[in-house]
Every structure is written in C-alpha cells, then in structure tokens.
C-alpha cells in the first residue's frame, strides 16, 4: 500500500514538472541579460523595462484584458438566459435538440468559427459601411463562442435545483422576479462565477477566431505575439508572458477565495 502511495506521488510530481517546465524555462529567460534564449548571460530586468516603455504593447495588453472581461460578462448574461430557456422548454426532445446544437458549437474548430464570422462580417460590411473589422467584431465573436461554454457549465447546476423549491416559493407568495433573485440566482451563483472565468480564459487565449476578425489597428496579445514571433521572439515577449502568468496565478487564487468565501463554514458543519 505504501509503495503505491509513493508511486502516485512520483507520478504526480513528474506530471507537474512536465507541465510547468516549459513555462519555467520561458520565465527563466525573461531575466536574461542577453537578447536571445541561446545562453543565460546574467540576471537583469532589462526586458521588463523595455516592455513598460513599449506603449503599443501595453495598450494591446489592456485591450486584451478588457475584451476578455467584457466578452465574458456579456456571454455569461446571455448564456444564463439560454440556460433558463433550455431548462424550462416543455418537450424533452426540443430540450435535447437545443443542447446538442449548443454542444456542436463547443466542438467545432476555432478556425471554422473564425472564418465563418469573417464571411458574415464582410457580407454585413457591404450593407452597413460602419461595420469594419476591429474591436466590435472581435467582441461579438468572442461573446458568441463563449456562450456555449457558459450554458454547458450552468445547466447541470440548474438541473440540480428541485422544481419543488420554485413551487414552494410561488406558494409562499413570491413574484416571478423574486423567485429569480431570491431562489434561482443565489443557488446558481457558484456555477455562474465558474462559467464566467471559463469564458474569460476562453476569450483571453483565443487566437484563431481573433486572427480572422481583427483589423483596423486593433489586435490582441496572441495575434500580436504571433506576428512578432515571425521575426524571432524577442525576450520582451518572455517578460510579458511572465507577467501574464503571474496574473493568471492571482486570478486562480482570487477565484478560490470568491468561490469559497461562504462555503467553508457550511461545509465544516
């Protein structure tokens, strides 16, 4: 038995080393004094200062995060509505069909979603000359591909909510909006937050869709890094990745505290 436990431990350690080694390597070279990843010549913050003087990069970074926060927010709200609609669709076959349609979008490759959006937007662009590739098209497509994941994450939780609870609320004289805000939403809160973060990460690391629908001077981080990498990656990118990694770390920790704020007390009881 003991041997088994050890093996599990070794396996886990090996697994995490395997997963984190490339990131660690990248971060290590962010502090390199030289310009390439060929040799580590000395410790310096050079690439970080370079990054902070690169206003173009900073604007892109802020744009990327604002886009992700906003797209995830709107997608969560729309997705929540979708969840309600699917859950309370009367006929089972319709419900199944809707859910399947939702899942197809989850599975279909980003490239196809991206190119279909490009076609849509260029066709629309011929009718409405105001609509040009840029921030709004990227936002719309990010919202669109985030909705299925939101639906998929909230729906199971809603299915857990016994219909009798809602009926009880009505019996006790609650108005429909009260049922919503006092019963359903509080019950769904953890899954809504989880869905939000999922949509957020989806939007943050999307490359393929953004690549298709961006333009007019608006770029996100992944697209910018891609076009810079063609000329050989500068260590500024390493520095940036380090910061984004630290931010992601903080986000995960923050998420942990938000989702466990009230629960631990309850769970302990």
């Amino acid at each position, binding site marked *: 038995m003991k041997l088994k436990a050890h093996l599990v431990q070794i396996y886990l350690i090996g697994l995490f080393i395997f997963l984190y080694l490339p990131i660690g390597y990248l971060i290590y070279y962010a502090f390199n004094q030289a310009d390439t990843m*060929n040799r580590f010549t000395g410790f310096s913050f050079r690439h970080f200062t370079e990054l902070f003087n690169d*206003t173009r990069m*900073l*604007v892109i970074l*802020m*744009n990327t*995060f*604002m886009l992700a*926060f*906003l797209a995830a*927010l709107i997608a969560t709200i729309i997705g929540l509505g979708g969840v309600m609609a699917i859950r309370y669709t009367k006929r089972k076959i319709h419900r199944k069909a809707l859910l399947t349609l939702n899942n197809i979008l989850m599975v279909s490759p980003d490239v196809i979603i991206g190119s279909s959006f490009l076609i849509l937007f260029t066709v629309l662009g011929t009718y409405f000359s105001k609509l*040009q*590739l840029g921030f709004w098209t990227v936002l719309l497509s990010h919202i669109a591909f985030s909705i299925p994941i939101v639906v998929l994450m909230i729906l199971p939780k809603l299915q857990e909510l016994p219909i009798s609870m809602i009926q009880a609320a009505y019996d006790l004289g609650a108005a429909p909006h009260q049922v919503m*805000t*006092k019963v359903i*939403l*509080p019950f769904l*809160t953890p899954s*809504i*937050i989880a869905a*939000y973060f999922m949509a957020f990460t989806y939007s943050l690391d999307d490359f393929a869709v953004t690549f298709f629908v961006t*333009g*007019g*001077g608006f770029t996100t981080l992944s697209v910018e890094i891609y*076009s*810079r990498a*063609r*000329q*050989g990656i500068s260590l500024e990118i390493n520095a940036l990745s380090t910061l984004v990694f630290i931010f992601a770390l903080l986000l995960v920790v923050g998420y942990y505290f*938000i989702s466990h*704020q*009230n629960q631990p007390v309850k769970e302990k009881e």
Partner: protein
Amino acid sequence: MKRLKVFLGSIIGIIIILNFGIIQIQKKQNKTTQNTVTIYNWGDYIDPDLVKKFEKETGYQVEYETFDSNEAMYTKLKQGGTHYDVVIPSDYMIQKLKESGLLQKIDLTQIPNVKYIDSRFMNLSFDEHNQYSIPYFWGTLGIVYNDKQYTKNDVDSWKKLWEPWFKDKIMMIDGARELMGIGLTYNGNSINSKDPHQLQQAYHQLLKLMPNIKAIVSDEIKNYLITEEAQIAVTYSGEAHDMVSQNKHLHYVLPKEGTNLWFDNMVISKNAQNINGAYAFINFMCEPQNAAQNARYIGYSTPNQAAKQLLGKTITNNQAFYPSEAQLDKMEVYQNLDAKMLQKYNDLFLELKMKH
C-alpha cells in the same frame, strides 16, 4: 445574490478602469488625424530615433504600423478602411499596387532631397520616372557561408551549389521567385522569364539541386547560421547583414552570374489622409544625414549617394553589400508577373518542394 452583485460590480469596475487607462494612454500620444502621419512599414525597418527626430522637427505625430510580407500588406490596402500615408513595399509589389490603382502619383518637386538619390536607382522598370515611388533601401540575393567550413571560392557562383559536397547542407530561402530564379540564372536566362520551355529547363536543373538542400525556410535561416547549425544558406543581403554582424565567421557572397536586385521604396497610398505629412516624411528620410543614420541602424544598402559618403569607406567598400557597377549591371529586378505566370512559378516551386 449579494456575492453575485459584488462580483458583477467588481468586473464592471475593472472594465471601466481598463477602458479609462487605454483612453488615457492614447490621449497622451495625442492622436489627431490632422496631425498624424501613418507609416506602414516592415517590422523593425527604421531607426526608432529617426521617428522621434521627425516628430520633433516637423511637429507631426507618427503612427507606425508594421507588416511581415508584401502580400499581407497588399491585402490590407486592397481591403480598404485603412488610411496609411506612407507605405514601403518592394519593387514587384509597387508595380502590382500601381496596376490596382492603390497608389498616388508623387510630385517630385515636393521632395527636394530626392536629388541625393543615386540616379542608378531611379527610373527603374517597375516604376518608370519614379511617378509613384522613392527608393528606401536596396539589396541583393546571395549566399552566406561559414569560413570554418568553406572558402569564398566554394560559393562564388550559383553553379557551385550543385557540387556534391554540399549534399544536404544548403539552407534555401522559401520563395518561388527566388528558387526558380536560381534555376533560370543557371541556364543563362532572365529571372523574369515567361518562356515555358525555359521554366521547364530551370525546373529540371533544380531537381538536381534538391539533394543538396537541407531545408527550405525563411525566418529561421538567420538563427541556424548564427548558431552554426548550418554552414551555408541562400538569403537576402539584409538578412545576411544581420548574420554577418552577429557571427564573424559568416560572409556574404554575390554569385558572379548575377542575381536578383531588390528595392524597398516609399509610396503614398491612395487613401492617404495627410499628403503633406507624407511628403514631409519621405523628404526627411531622403536627407543624407538621416538616410545614413538609418542605414547604419538597419544595415541594408542605401540608395542615397550623399548618405553613402557619410557612411564611410569601411562600410561602402564592402563589395558584398555595395557591389561594383559591373556587378550591378548583371543583376535583375523582379517584374510583376501576371496571375497565370505566377501560378506557373508557384506550381513548379511546389513540385520541387514536394520532391525535396
């Protein structure tokens, strides 16, 4: 519910803060179309100090965007919705842009500094009488080798690439015109040949070259040569300059049969919004002092006669980067081929790649 509200509130707060930050940064850069010159150039293809100097001297603000291939740039311009003032494409692309009506005629009287440009680089086939473009940099296609392995005699002619001792050694630049050009030159034909028979001949000649080729790549060549993982490559003089300056064992050679001569020229796009700014920028870049500073930073060959004198003999006496008149006479500029001919080049190139 309260938690959800706090969560929602903080997210909206973050979005507002970010948005505010972006607006602040953009405001600081003080962007108004009246005052801005938008430059669309290759990545890392200008000394950033010159941009600052230009802003200070003229009061214009520069908005700088970059592209990584002529074709990507063409699509962007063609698509519309952009208002680049000055664009810096290569020779054959200028011809194509011109034919697509995406360029504005240049009034040379607005650019007094054009007198400093070497007359050899004016009035070229892709833009006769410089109606649309002013030279920015020029260069060649040639061979880079490492002197630990080879001597100059090993690579001074395209024909020598076929020698058996280069088996699986050569790094080849990834371009249909470039590779086909080598085959055509081998047989003594023009690199702009439209004769199917000559192309077929070149193709068969190149088939024999394939065993010698280690890889057909583009941007990776630089690192391979610098780290000495490869010892010989066919590449552009601009790239070669970077390699030579980073590894002193590397040398750039122009094959004696002649080669491709390329140009990157400044043009004014059809949708330019600030014509005066565009003229001011082009004139500024033609100023000998600035052209010399830029050439020192980028390392490419400058077409500016006066700037060349400022650069000093050690740079301009290097025949690999500033070839003699006799060598220049043997070189050819790419001409834009019509779509069908280009397809033919691409097809042959793809077939070669597959047989590689």
